[in-house]
């Protein structure tokens, strides 16, 4: 579904990603782990073109998105994103946060968007907060709203950029629970995370990145119990 070939990204002189090759299949959950500054987030942000790659190609369902074969807005409708700091719209209620994009992009009329929005809030366990402003919610709740907001566009795949890193430890569980539910429903997910437990339990595949390149990838069992690369082992020893 998402096919990344020889992707590289430089910020001026600084090389953030080099020669990344990654293939994600429909329905697959891929967790990207690695030390901070290893380029994980940048890789994710290249996939929905929040960052413009400097080299290589990214194909989404066979279309070269880096070569302009696909409308960027269409791509972003189909590949949603959840951010580390939620980035909810502060002046709008929870429900308005969820319904804004479907209404503006005309994928749904107001009534449909509202109805679907409530279903999604139900799904993330926040239906009773529909008319509250984001600032009145805990971080964990805000992140669940952000997930509902991304789901409102009925994406085919979701990118999670460290979705629990900004949360107090006791709030992490609820967010991971929602993500797990999505994974079980067959959503294609790319998750940059420091939650090794989640990667182990939920991911079909784990990718370890360091220094702008993919060092090792494989199924969670192999990566966590029997890493081949020294750098992977060193990293896992530090975080586990």
């Amino acid at each position: 579904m998402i096919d990344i070939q020889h992707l590289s990204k430089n910020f001026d002189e600084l090389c953030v990603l080099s020669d990344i090759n990654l293939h994600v299949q429909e329905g697959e959950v891929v967790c990207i782990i690695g030390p901070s500054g290893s380029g994980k987030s940048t890789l994710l942000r290249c996939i929905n073109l929040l960052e413009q790659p400097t080299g290589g190609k990214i194909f989404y369902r066979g279309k070269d998105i880096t070569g302009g074969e696909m409308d960027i807005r269409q791509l972003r409708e189909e590949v949603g994103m959840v951010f580390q700091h939620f980035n909810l719209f502060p002046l709008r209620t929870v429900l308005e946060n969820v319904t804004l994009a479907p209404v503006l992009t005309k994928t749904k009329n107001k009534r449909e968007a509202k109805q679907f929005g409530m279903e999604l809030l139900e799904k993330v366990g926040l239906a009773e907060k529909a008319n509250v402003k984001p600032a009145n919610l805990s971080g964990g709740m805000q992140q669940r709203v952000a997930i509902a907001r991304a789901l409102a566009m009925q994406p085919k795949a979701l990118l999670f950029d460290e979705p629990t890193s900004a949360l107090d430890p006791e709030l992490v569980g609820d967010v991971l629970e929602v993500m797990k539910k999505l994974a079980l429903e067959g959503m294609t997910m790319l998750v940059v995370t420091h939650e090794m437990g989640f990667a182990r339990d939920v991911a079909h595949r784990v990718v370890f990145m360091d220094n702008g390149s993919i060092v090792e990838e494989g199924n969670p069992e192999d990566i966590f119990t029997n890493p081949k690369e020294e750098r992977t082992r060193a990293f896992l020893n530090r975080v586990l």
Partner: protein
Amino acid sequence: MSLSLLKVLIPMLLTGLKYTIQIALLGIIFGFFIGSLTGFVLQWKSKVLKFIAGVYIWIIRGTPLVVQALYMYYVIPKLLHTDISSYTAGVIVVSLNSGAFIAEIVRGALQGVALGQKEAGLSLGLSPKQTLFHIIVPPAFRSMLPALCNHFIIIVKDTALLSMITVNEMTHQAQNYTAMSFQYIPTYTILALFYLILISVLILLQKYVEKRMGATK
């Protein structure tokens, strides 16, 4: 201070007050339009528009309001072979002047909205324009309101300078009265009190706006 002084001076000042408020209101409204436009342009990619906006702000910030008023009333009509009333010249000058300052307020407010908000909008498939108007502008406008209130207070006081080009606002009315009565002490004392009361009301209003903004944040 005699009763007859008050009988003549107060109505004159009230007439002046009407002009003062009118010009200040028109100034902030037009200024807001000019300022928003210029503020957006400053964020734009076009180098030419940015340059024009930069020159405009440079000229306005680089010259005193009084000089701008004198120029607008005495020089520009002459160059264009037309006539404009001092009132019109006053409104134009105040609008242009506040436009340049509001442009900076607008630019600051737009930049103040976190980049994450823009990215959230774009990541949902919204166009850059939709993201600007539906996601960035509403919180930016909100954060601008206290600064706009503050600027309005400044404009109200600035209108006094338009007495130099004979606009019939409060200060000019007071000057007219002293010219015929020579009662400097009571006239200017009452004039100062008029401004003080007017500005006090506006400050209360500003406090109210700020409180409401804070409460819903």
